[in-house]
């Protein structure tokens, strides 16, 4: 960790500055976070598609449906991937500035959509692509607006 003082607080990388030796680890953490997140979403979707759930007419039925889902091994793989994503994300937050990490989450929208198309065979129309691009840009804008002013 760099020794420079900054208003970011303990445990966060100084604003806009990544120590040289941390840079590789940061890129690795970010990459793992993005891939694990997208892959996790895909696996969860696949698992849920395979399940035959009772008709969800009440909240109690929804609760038991969730219980059934959690017992499924594919769902558990998906949860595992989400945990990997969580861990990598926390590491990335410690190693790099917030203003880089948050917009990177927009990338997962593209990854997830591409994976869904090629791995799950989902049809993604042009309109939907445009919608996803807009949402992605919006999330990036929000992420940039959250950056500390001294970046």
């Amino acid at each position, binding site marked *: 960790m760099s020794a420079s003082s900054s208003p970011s607080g303990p445990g966060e990388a100084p604003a806009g500055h990544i120590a040289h030796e941390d840079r590789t680890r940061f890129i690795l953490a970010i990459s793992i976070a993005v891939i694990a997140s997208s892959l996790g979403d895909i696996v969860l979707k696949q698992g849920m598609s395979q399940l035959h759930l009772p008709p969800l007419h009440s909240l109690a039925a929804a609760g038991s449906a969730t219980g059934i889902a959690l017992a499924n091994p594919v769902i558990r793989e998906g949860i595992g991937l989400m945990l990997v994503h969580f861990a990598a994300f*926390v590491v990335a937050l410690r190693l790099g500035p917030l203003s880089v990490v948050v917009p990177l989450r927009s990338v997962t929208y593209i990854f997830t959509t591409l994976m869904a198309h090629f791995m799950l065979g989902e049809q993604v129309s042009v309109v939907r692509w445009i919608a996803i691009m807009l949402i992605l840009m919006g999330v990036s804008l929000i992420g940039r607006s959250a950056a500390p002013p001294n970046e």
Partner: protein
Amino acid sequence: MNNEYAVAMAFAILGSVAGDFLVKKAASRSQPKAPGGLMASPNSNSSAAGASQGISSVASTKSFQIRTRWLRLLQLIAGLTLLTLHFGGFLIALKLAPVTVTIPLMSCTYILTTMLGKIFLHEPINRTRWTGIGVIIIGVILLELSTRL
């Protein structure tokens, strides 16, 4: 968008926003000041990183600390419960609609987070943020249209 999907997404989105908020409150050492405070979640649909926001100067009386500790425990339990509801709704939503619809739709959590930050934490919302929210709203409308065309 049928009723069951709408309910599932409501749980997923609201659960995520409220759950993240409570868990962060339970874990924080002082009031979060950075507008990025609620943005630093690993995912728009997973639990909070709980990063502490600096050194606090909390009063040191013992009863205050005990009360605070119980309050934080309550917040943590409530937050985790909400996050569980979020995940359940998310799973069901994943079954009911294509993942290319559900995942982008989860970006609505950013809109809610911003609104909550403004109302409860009195965070100022700069123009960039408003633009981002507007763009997301247009995207979500288009997304809804893409499911009908």
